[in-house]
């Protein structure tokens, strides 16, 4: 059964169509990530799910009931905000139990729940602190605890890690994922960071300009992107997209050449940096820059005017300015048409 079912959802602000006819489902107890560049409507979708924002068109089902017109607090969702939205004049404990007090939960039960939630996120020692005296990570945990005590099965999160430094972000990623599994939560998580999406999601919903581009598990989107946008948004460095007019097609390996030549609709070919290898034959390139990351090396190469990347797990003896040739396996190549859509070969 799906926890959330969204049908033909749209939202416009005056002339701006922030969300255009979006439909998707979120399976129960799953971790779904809304991923896309800034301004693509991720937050707007999340706010419409929460009931904090009106929908222009479409319906939202949560837990089997149509909640399109239901007010926010009655939808059975909790939310973690980007800026945490902690009440600055209340201490950690008061912040966590704010909703319980509003709902007039008896004091005894309240104490128990707050203690439990604080335990889960490791805040038991800090219950008397004001938010101003907490670190970013601790504030984040308060926001999580507040969401946990609300006992809602659906939790919405809007870029909850964007204010943390990269090390803490990696830690909290694991922690949130772990929490979601342990408590059996259905999470809808907004981010523009593909690394977060790849490492946390059961399902990624990739958005662009208010529309869904592709829906699928992280591996699925990585392995079979349906468009240039998907191909380039996921993976770092992004997939190399080579326009056939920009490269010397005749220098390609014969098998690749015949694949490319067989279909006149092909405009671009795409190859991931990790799938390109230095070889005896193939595209002639000049090494333009080399970045060592320890575990891997990223080369920036130029072929005619076109720059692209090659990723190597080892550290080959190659220097700036070297003239080499590169190639790739036929199976690792993606073909795109003039509308930037994937062509199945």
């Amino acid at each position: 059964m799906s926890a959330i079912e969204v049908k033909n959802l749209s939202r416009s602000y005056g002339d701006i169509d922030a969300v255009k006819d979006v439909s998707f489902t979120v399976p129960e107890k799953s971790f779904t990530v809304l991923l896309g560049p800034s301004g693509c409507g991720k937050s707007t979708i999340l706010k419409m799910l929460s009931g904090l924002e009106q929908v222009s068109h479409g319906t939202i089902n949560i837990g089997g009931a149509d909640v399109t017109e239901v007010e926010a607090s009655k939808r059975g969702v909790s939310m973690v905000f980007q800026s945490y939205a902690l009440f600055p004049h209340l201490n950690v404990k008061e912040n966590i139990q704010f909703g319980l007090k509003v709902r007039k939960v008896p004091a005894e039960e309240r104490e128990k729940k707050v203690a439990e939630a604080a335990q889960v996120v490791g805040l038991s020692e800090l219950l008397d602190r004001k938010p101003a005296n907490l670190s970013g990570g601790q504030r984040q945990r308060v926001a999580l605890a507040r969401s946990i005590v609300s006992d809602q099965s659906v939790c919405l999160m809007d870029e909850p890690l964007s204010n943390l430094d990269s090390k803490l972000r990696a830690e909290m990623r694991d922690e949130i994922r772990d929490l979601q599994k342990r408590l059996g939560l259905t999470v809808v998580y907004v981010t523009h960071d593909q690394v977060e999406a790849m490492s946390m999601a059961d399902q990624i919903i990739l958005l662009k300009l208010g529309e869904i581009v592709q829906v699928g598990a992280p591996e699925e989107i990585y392995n079979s992107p349906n468009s240039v946008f998907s191909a380039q948004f996921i993976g770092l460095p992004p997939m190399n997209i080579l326009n056939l007019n920009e490269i010397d097609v005749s220098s390609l390996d014969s098998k690749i050449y015949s694949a490319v030549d067989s279909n006149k609709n092909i405009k671009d070919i795409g190859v991931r940096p990790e799938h390109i290898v230095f070889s005896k034959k193939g595209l002639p390139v000049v090494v333009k820059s080399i970045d060592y990351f320890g575990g891997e090396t990223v080369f920036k190469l130029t072929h005619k005017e076109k720059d692209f990347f090659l990723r190597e797990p080892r550290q080959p003896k190659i220097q700036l300015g070297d003239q080499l040739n590169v190639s790739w396996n036929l199976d690792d190549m993606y073909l795109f048409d003039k509308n930037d859509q994937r062509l199945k070969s």
Partner: protein
Amino acid sequence: MKDSTRNIQGWLLFTPAAILLLAFTHYPTVTTFFQSLYTNKSILRPRRFSGVEAYESMFSDPIFWKVFVNNMWLALGTIPTSIGIAILMALIVNKAIPGRGFLRMAYFTPTMLPMIAVANIWLFFYAPEIGLIDKVLEIFGFEGNNWLGNPSTVLPSIIVMTVWKEAGLFMVFYLAGLQTISPELEEAAKLEGSSRWNYFWRIQFPLLLPTTLFVLINAFLNSFKLVDHLFVLTKGGPDNASNLILYYIYETAFSFLDISYASALTIFLLALLALTALAQFFFLDRRTHYR
């Protein structure tokens, strides 16, 4: 640069301001204080040192007590009401409603008017029989009243007018305060099922406490400083029923020409205002406890 040269430079920069401050603030204050310790000079009697005599007669002067109590009633009558109205107006114009800019301006207009102009407007409201209030009362068959001529209604009338004038100014402070509160707080509270009322009392009002403290103290100071309207409306009458300390000082000095007594009154008022200002420093310094 050496420390000593820096210090000299600092003092040089400070000097022009210091001279102005000394000449126009500190020197007159000190002179006033000394004047309060001497009797008035007249053709018959020369000035003589009288010590605290002027202060003694102040504390036994029934009119002094009357204007002091009037001032306290004015403070009590205007401050809570104008703060309440200011918060309400700020909450309204903080919402994204159509015509918000116009409303903000409308609420702020009374504050921009000089007190004398305000008094003229309200003179028209309060005038017996031909005034707006009496005219409206007449329509509903009520008896009119000489609002400013009746000792029991004159102070309340002035209180109403002062609230009308001041609420707009305080609204601006509250609006600024409200805008520092992240809208996400309201969304978070809403999701938890918090009503508008609950959100105001549990979140907004406590977060506006520093603003309230600031407004409170300024409103208190204002209630002693604003007297311009008395010149137009009542001249402190009838029978000192609307007289205020500052206006009484003016009368004593320039109508009764009793400089010694006026000086004593001035020092009293100065002391009161200075204490309030100190309280402001003391409280407002600690207000940022949760930022």
